[in-house]
Each structure stands twice: as structure tokens, then as C-alpha cells.
């Protein structure tokens, strides 16, 4: 597999970091100054200056073609799975407090194992139902740690 350069990524990161640094200057200008304790903005601004310098350095290195290459460990990987899992995880995160831990956990575990390629239906269902229930019982009763209740459980 040919090595892939990180040039584009490095350029994008540099361009994303610079506005963050500028925002630090913008917001810190509005902070109050307290006598004899140093300006509250010094440390954030110092950090922003160093960050901007590092971003510019990364940008220049990328433009001069000195970016590193992506390690070969990424050969044969499947990014679509990551996207599906990210979508599932996002949906789970946004609904868990409304629907409850078990009500969201069952479809989440089912979808997760399905996306990873599990097609043995009995195992899949047992896993999807068993894990959220077992986790709920373990945390609620044995460890006394509350979990989201929601409209269901």
C-alpha cells in the first residue's frame, strides 16, 4: 500500500487552529483586570500565541511537502463502519435520557453488533437484551450508581 501524506490534514488543522487563537484574544480583551495578581488574559494569550506559532509551523511544513505519512496500520480498514457507529452512538446519546437506559441500550447494542458483522440472530438478540439489563442491575443494585430512567427504564 502506498504511503498517504498527511499534507491536507495538516493544512486543515492549521487553518482551524488559527481562528481559535484569534478568538482567545477577542474574548480575553473583555475580562476584568485584578490588581497585583497579573492580568487574567496573560496565560490564555500566551498559550494562543504559542499555539498560533505551532499552527503556522505545521502549515509551512505541509506546504513545503514535509508532512509525515499515515502509518501503514490503516491498510484494509473500513471507515463506513466507523461512520455507522458514530451515528448510532450520537443517536443513543441524544435519546438515552428521554427513553431510558434499557430502552435505548437494547437497539444500540443490537445495531452495534449488527454493524460489526454479527448475523447469528439468537446470539445477537440475547446480547442486545442481556447487556443493558445486566449493566443496569449491576450499577443500580450492586454499585448504587444511578443510570438514566427516562419514560421507560
Amino acid at each position, binding site marked *: 500500500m502506498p*504511503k498517504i501524506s*498527511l499534507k491536507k*490534514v495538516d493544512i486543515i*488543522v492549521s487553518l482551524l*487552529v488559527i481562528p*481559535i487563537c484569534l478568538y*482567545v484574544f477577542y474574548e*480575553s480583551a473583555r*475580562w*476584568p483586570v*485584578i490588581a*497585583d*495578581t*497579573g492580568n*487574567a488574559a496573560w*496565560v*490564555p494569550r500566551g*498559550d*494562543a500565541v*504559542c*499555539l498560533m506559532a*505551532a*499552527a503556522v*509551523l*505545521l502549515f509551512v511544513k505541509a506546504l513545503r511537502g514535509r508532512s*509525515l505519512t*499515515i*502509518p501503514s*496500520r*490503516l491498510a*484494509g*480498514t*473500513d*471507515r463506513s*463502519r*466507523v461512520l455507522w*457507529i*458514530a451515528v448510532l*452512538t*450520537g443517536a443513543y*446519546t441524544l435519546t*438515552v*435520557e428521554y427513553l431510558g437506559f434499557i430502552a435505548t441500550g437494547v437497539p*444500540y*447494542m443490537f445495531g*452495534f*453488533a449488527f*454493524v*460489526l*458483522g454479527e448475523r447469528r440472530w439468537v446470539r445477537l438478540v440475547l*446480547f442486545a437484551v442481556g*447487556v443493558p439489563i445486566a*449493566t443496569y442491575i449491576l*450499577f443500580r443494585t450492586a*454499585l*448504587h*450508581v*444511578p*443510570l*438514566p430512567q427516562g419514560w421507560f427504564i
Partner: protein
Amino acid sequence: MVDLNLLYHGFGTVLSGYNLIALVLGSFFGIIIGAIPGLTATMGIALLIPFTFGMTPITGIVMLLGIYTGAIYGGGIASILINTPGTPAAAASCFDGYPMAKKGLAGKAIGIATISSGIGGTFTALCLAFFAPILANFALRFSAPEYFALATFGLSVTITLSGRSPVKGVISGLLGLLIAMIGLDPIGGFQRFTFGWTEMSGGISFVPMLIGLFALSEGFHQVEVILSAPRISAKLNNILPTFQDIKSCIPAYLRACPIGLIVGITPAIGADTAAFLSYAETKRASKHPETFGTGEPAGVAAAQCGENASTGGDVLPMITLGIPGDACTAVLMGALTIHNLQPGPMLFQNHADTVHQIFAGMISANIVFVILGLIFARFFAKVINIDRKFLVPLIFIACMVGSYAINNVLFDLITCVIFGMIGYIMVRFDFPVAPMVLAQILGSMMESNFRRSLSMSQGDFLIFFTRPITVIILALAVFTTVVSVRRQNQALKQEAEQLAKLGI
């Protein structure tokens, strides 16, 4: 000096009732996590922190110490059986462990690895109990400028943790420092970078961020590269090594124990470096270096002993100064903080009994994993076969539960998921995550002590250059930065030359 009476009572506490059960369970899960390739000790601790919420501080902490020491040891099991290190630290154990397994000596290799890890770990835990009170006592002289210098030194270490690109490590660290500034100003009490969100006024919760960056991001990586479970063909017989086997490894222990301890204390290098150095030094000093790499028991002993001997050294600066040297101790520090134990010299003053219980827990954990490792060796070998299609969802659900359970707020869960995705993207594009976490921990310490120092000197910056300890620590920070950058640049030049030779 270590208070032997408190240490004795510490053993009494750790080895009784729930604490002992927690220690055994922690070690057991730690070995499992270590044995499964792709799961690291750092991830294991981050994942299992939530299980300690309902426990007393010492019960929770001994459980985490069990996970830590157990996972570092457990990595060697996969190295020996499938030639794939369970944790990055166990890579050196492949050199002689796997050839021993191919010769039909897998049981003997695992037995030697277990005893050797126990010897290294116990040695370093005893050293921790001896040296930590001395260092903490010295650190009591420190004031705000010294703490500022220490935090700066810790941040300079982030350069060393930068992997292949120092610039990317610096960017990661500086972004972590900015994240640490979100929330209330430590002196003035006004809101900074919160965008008006009340959830952010207390700052970004450290543990959800930690779980996201270390556990969830690794989970995403596992989703991407999900592999079928490896098959183990080796039979495990004669696991308990003979006295002669152990006697032949004593020279390796004599070298690996101090190497591991010193490497552990040195910031930013940990168990992996300790294992490689111990292995290399044992091979160099051997009368038959040619046997190394072909299944030499002393090679396995040196690597495993050095690896576990670094654990106490890693914990030393964290518990005495509040400066974590690597990602694993950063996570441990987070766990201590959750249980209202702020690492640093004052911990030794205010919670001397708890500190000695931690020492006792660390020593006991190294003995417990040896017992478990020898009894359940065949079970741990089978764990390597676990189906990733079921393991990875379990990691995700544990991350979700853990981040939510800290404060029972959805914002923490969202924080965990966002940082999980950020961590995955960072690792994928060669940005190290450890500097971001270390900077988040050290950021508030650095900033508040910087401001307190200026308050002490009424705004005079010379306070940082007129106090001998501050000057020495700041000079060390500059030295570490320069040496790290030069070393990494040399490594990159060598890599470029090799690529040029290959015509890539």
C-alpha cells in the same frame, strides 16, 4: 521516611473484606484487559473508574491499582501466545516468549513471565513506599513559584510524548491547556470560554474527557480495524516454574528492577521503554547473547520484570508532586481526585493513613496478580480468543455508563462522545492525545500558581528567577524540551533517509 506502623495497618485494611475482593477483581479484570490485544492499561483504568464510584476511596483505589498492575503484566500473555503484544509495553516479551511457545514451552514462558512481573512490581512498590514520603517531605518546601515551575516542566514533557511529530504534540498540548481554562477564572471567578452555557461554567469534566480520549477513541479504532479473534494453538503445561528456572533468571532481575524503577520515575517514558532497556541490558551482559531471540527464559524474565518495575516509578512523581509522568498515571490521578484525594505533598500530611494504604495496595496488587496469573493462566489464554464483535460494543456501553454516572448529567455523556470522536480523529491523523490530557490536568495548576506567584511578588516576574528550586526546575524544562525536539528531529531524518533509500 515510611511509617511502618501505618504501612502495617494499611495491609490490614487492604487485605480485609471488600478491599481484598476489590483488589482481586481489579487484578483479574486488569489481566484480562492486558491480555486482549488493542486494550491498554490506560483504557482499562479509564473504563473501570465508574465501577469505583459507589465504593469507599480506598476500596476503589486498590481496585484501580489491581487493574493497573494486572494489565501491565497481562500484556505479556498475548505476546507469548500469539506474538502480538496485549499492551504496547509487552512488545519486548515477544522476542523470547513466542519462540518458547513455538518450542512447546508456552506454559513455562507464562509462568516465568508471571513470577518475573511479580518480582519487578513488588520491588518497585516497596521503593515507592520508601522514597515517596521522602520526596513528599522535600516538596513541602515548595510554594506557588515552584509549583508553577513543576507544571511547566510537566508540560515540557508533553513534547516528549509527541510521537513522530513534536509540532503536533505541541498543538495537542496547547489545545489541552486552552480546554483547562474553560470555566471560572481561578482568581477572579468570572466565566471564560463558556459561550454562555451554564454546563461549562465548572469547566470540562475531566473524567468524561479522559474516557472519551483514551477508551472511546480506541473503541472507534477497534471498530475500524476489527479483526477476527486470533487462534491459539499452544498448549499450556507446567506453568509453575521450577526453582532452577527462577534462579537462572536472578541476574536478569538484578538489572531489570533498577532499570524499570529509574525509567518509571523519568517523565514521559514508561513500561515499554523499561522492558526494552531491561531486555537489551540483560542480553548485552549475558555470556550467551546469541540464545536471545530463540526462546531464552532470561529474555522473558528481563522484559516482564522491567515492565512491571516501572509501575512504582511512574506513580512516584504523581502521588508526591501531583505531576503525572504518562497517560496511565494521569488517569490514575483523575481517579484519586474523584475520590477527593488530591495528589501532592499535602496528601501525605492530611491523609497519611490513606497514602500508606495505597502503598500496601500497590505491594499487595503485585502479589495478587502473580497468584491469579498462575492459577488462571489457561483461562486468561482463552480470553485472547474473545469475539471482538461483542467486546467492542461492551467497551462503548461501559464508556457511556461511566461518563454519565459521575454527575448524572447528559452533558458529561456528550462530552465523552465528542472527545471520543476527537481522540479517534487525532490518533488517525497522527496527533497524540496524551499531551492534551496532561495539559488539561496541569493547566489549572500552572495558571493558578503563576497568578499566585505574581500576587506574592506584587506583579514582579523576577520571582521565577530568584528562587533556586524554581530556576532548577525551569532549566530542566528547557533542557527536556530541547533534547526531545532534537531527538525527534534526528529520528525523523533517519526515517526520511530510509524512505529515500527505498525510493518512496
